[in-house]
């Protein structure tokens, strides 16, 4: 294993194999690209097309030459990172400049379709018809409806152009109340009707000035009115019953259809750019501003506290159990891993039950009557305690692993120098351990900084002080702001994205600051 010299002949064989592998790999990449690129162009999936082209280019640039050695190692992981982490982040930053959210997820056309489509009302007391859809040419239409009145059995026909009229008797054959054949028409099967439902839905067979027969399902039609109509030329929606006109106007920072008084007429709006509105809302919202700093302070305490407590316990246990002479060491280690083996959400939900003041396990076992979840201070303790339980095995595993990599001669040397076991641990082993683990602590801090689940599943941010609805006693920034973003009339992704970006910037600054600290450690090494 540790033989440092590679025999020359082995080197050559490896190269030949490597060459074959390389050719096969590059060949399959090229083949995949040839297959995928036209497909993506056809689907207009520009984002994925860009990914494909860039990836292929990168693979060929990196792996056909002898240069870019670091690139060869970094590329595979980076590929996934860029596609599935960085791109979504960029898209999210993009969302932060839009009104994306409930009520404005789609296009303007979709909103119009929804508004007008929802205004279709069936005429009270009008009959229903069995429907057979016919076409003279392609299955894509144009369509002609053959209808049989379900109550009278009379047969009618009509199309988008041709109003409803009784059908000539010998032109169609009817069996069990349904037109089964029609001269000169190909009749659609139910599946075909289903496949072309959208187009067929546009067919309204005029009955009189206000009502028309429309498709209901694969074999039925009904008589109804569509009260709202969109006038494309004027970009307005008209109520055909009352004559009321709705135009596009600006309400609450976004465009929507408004009535004559400029009041919003329909809940549907559409996805649109809003510039920096979401950001200015974050900084001008009074209740957010006031609570931001307090939440920020607790976020720091929570994140740092979680890291310190889990690390301290994990390290202490790793050190204590890292001794050959302990019997059942394996057993200890296995059992200490248990909390980590429980999926986090299960652990959080179970712990939240433990803290119940009257019926919870903790108060019952200890005989205390602590109001764990109702008192802000105890709730904070509860959160840290649970997070400690969930997190210490992680630190324990990592520290146990790290202890193994500390060369035994280091310890030996310290011992020979007369250091006590404690001194060796504190002055020699721990600093060495920190070198490899410090970055992990930074990452762990960052993770907890945005550890939404820990807060949400355990306390839901509570307890909330009287008359304070923005920030609960255990709310960290992310849980507080998400509640604001999603607590109004539905989810507001645009605003939530803006908040995420701001939080990201803050975490980034903090991490960069901490990074200097780890750099210091690395240099010591």
């Amino acid at each position, binding site marked *: 294993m540790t033989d440092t010299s590679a025999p020359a002949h082995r080197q050559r064989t490896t190269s030949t194999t490597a060459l074959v592998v390389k050719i096969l790999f590059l060949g399959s990449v090229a083949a995949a690209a040839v297959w995928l690129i036209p497909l993506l162009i056809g689907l207009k999936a520009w984002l994925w097309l860009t990914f494909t082209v860039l990836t292929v280019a990168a693979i060929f640039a990196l792996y056909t030459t002898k240069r870019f050695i670091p690139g060869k190692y970094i590329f595979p992981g980076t590929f996934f990172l860029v596609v599935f982490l960085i791109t979504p982040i960029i898209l999210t930053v993009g969302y932060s400049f839009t009104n994306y959210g409930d009520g404005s997820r789609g296009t303007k056309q979709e909103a119009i379709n929804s508004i007008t489509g929802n205004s279709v009302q069936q005429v009270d007391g009008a009959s229903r018809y069995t429907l057979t859809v016919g076409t003279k040419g392609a299955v894509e239409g144009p369509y002609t409806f053959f209808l049989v009145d379900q109550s009278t059995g009379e047969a009618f026909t009509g199309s988008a152009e041709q109003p409803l009229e009784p059908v000539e008797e010998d032109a169609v054959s009817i069996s069990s109340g349904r037109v089964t054949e029609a001269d000169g028409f190909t009749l659609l099967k139910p599946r075909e009707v289903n496949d072309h439902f959208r187009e067929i839905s546009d067919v309204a067979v005029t009955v009189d000035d206000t009502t028309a027969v429309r498709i209901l399902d694969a074999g039925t039609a009904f008589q109804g009115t569509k009260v709202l109509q969109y006038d494309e030329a004027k970009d307005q929606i008209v109520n055909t019953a009352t004559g009321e006109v709705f135009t596009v106007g600006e309400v609450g920072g976004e465009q929507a259809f408004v009535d004559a008084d400029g009041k919003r007429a329909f809940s549907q709006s559409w996805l649109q750019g809003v510039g920096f509105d979401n950001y200015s809302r974050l900084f001008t919202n009074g209740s957010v501003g006031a609570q931001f700093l307090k939440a920020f302070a607790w976020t720091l305490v929570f994140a740092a506290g979680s890291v310190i407590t889990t690390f301290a316990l994990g390290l202490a246990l790793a050190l204590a159990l890292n001794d*050959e002479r302990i019997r059942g060491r394996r057993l200890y280690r296995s059992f200490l891993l248990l909390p980590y083996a429980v999926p986090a959400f*299960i652990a959080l939900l179970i712990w939240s039950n433990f803290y119940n003041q009257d019926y919870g396990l903790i108060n019952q076992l200890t005989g205390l009557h602590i109001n764990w979840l109702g008192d802000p201070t105890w709730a904070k303790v509860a959160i840290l305690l649970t997070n400690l339980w969930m997190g210490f095995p992680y630190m324990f595993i990592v520290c146990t692993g790290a202890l*193994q990599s500390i060369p035994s001669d280091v310890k030996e040397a310290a011992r020979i120098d007369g250091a006590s076991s404690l001194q060796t641990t504190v002055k020699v082993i721990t600093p060495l351990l920190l070198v490899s683990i410090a970055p992990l602590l930074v990452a762990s801090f960052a993770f907890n900084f945005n550890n939404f689940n820990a807060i949400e599943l355990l306390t839901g941010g509570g307890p909330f002080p009287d008359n304070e609805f923005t920030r609960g006693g255990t709310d960290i920034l992310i849980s507080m702001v998400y509640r604001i973003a999603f607590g109004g009339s539905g989810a507001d992704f645009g605003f939530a994205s803006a908040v995420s970006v701001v939080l990201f910037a803050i975490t980034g600054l903090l991490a960069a600051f901490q990074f200097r600290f780890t750099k210091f450690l690395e240099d010591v090494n």
Partner: protein
Amino acid sequence: MSTSITTPTDDPAPRNRMSAGRWFREVGWRHLVGIAALVFAAIPILYVISASLNPLGTVSSTNLIPRAFSLDHFRELLSGSRGPFLRWYLNTAIVCGVVALTQVSLSVLASYAFSRLRFAGRRGGMLALLLIMMFPAILSMIAIYTMISDLGEAIPFLGLDSLPGYIVVLLGGSLGQVWLIKGFFDTIPRELDEAAIIDGATHWQTFTRILLPTLTPILATTFLLSLVGVMSDFLLGSIFLTSDENKTLAVGLYGMLAGDRSNNLGVFAAGAVLTMIPVIVLYQFLQKYIVGGSTSGAVKG
């Protein structure tokens, strides 16, 4: 792998050769610490186990020590009446195995470059990596959903509600273990690979033949960490996996509990117990690599 001698000066003396006082000073207190930690770790677990055996399966009827014993909840789960539990097991194994293996492999590749090779943007790259991992991921899920939905149009195999699609999304975290592994790389003396290079080995040979073997403990560790991390995901999973036969354990169990907690505690706890077991078994297997004496290789020369 034989156990290494971490403290070579110590004569692994049997206990009876030590005085009780010395034994306690050197070994005994460690047991106390260990037992205290065990109690802390085990109480909630005991509660889960007790709940899984409690035939009533409600929150208020569950105690730390089971009063009644029944395997009903396990039977219910395994019978499939609450969903294809065994299938979820298999799916979880596939997803965790593939993602954890890939994550460790790709991370170790990148760590090698970050630790051993010098190039422009090395520190910047490390920092960027850390920053990206910090983005509050909850939100970018909407973007990911849309992306995968589009991808599924072109390659249905990788679309929504497919295990491969879910797997590639999780692979976004492929470099998640770089920091940890790089830290360990840094502790391996550089002379080791420099010597190999001088002897005419290529960087790839140095990496695979010299460095990788010395990394066994951390590879085993990161594999476990990555695996458990993947196993716990239910947020992404519940958005992506809608068909029953595509769900993972976490998604299935979460759904079960979300439906009705007070009633379902028993079944849910049984599911949690069954989820824990493979992880513990795996740790048993990996433990010898994690704490085994593989570092001896690194310092032998």
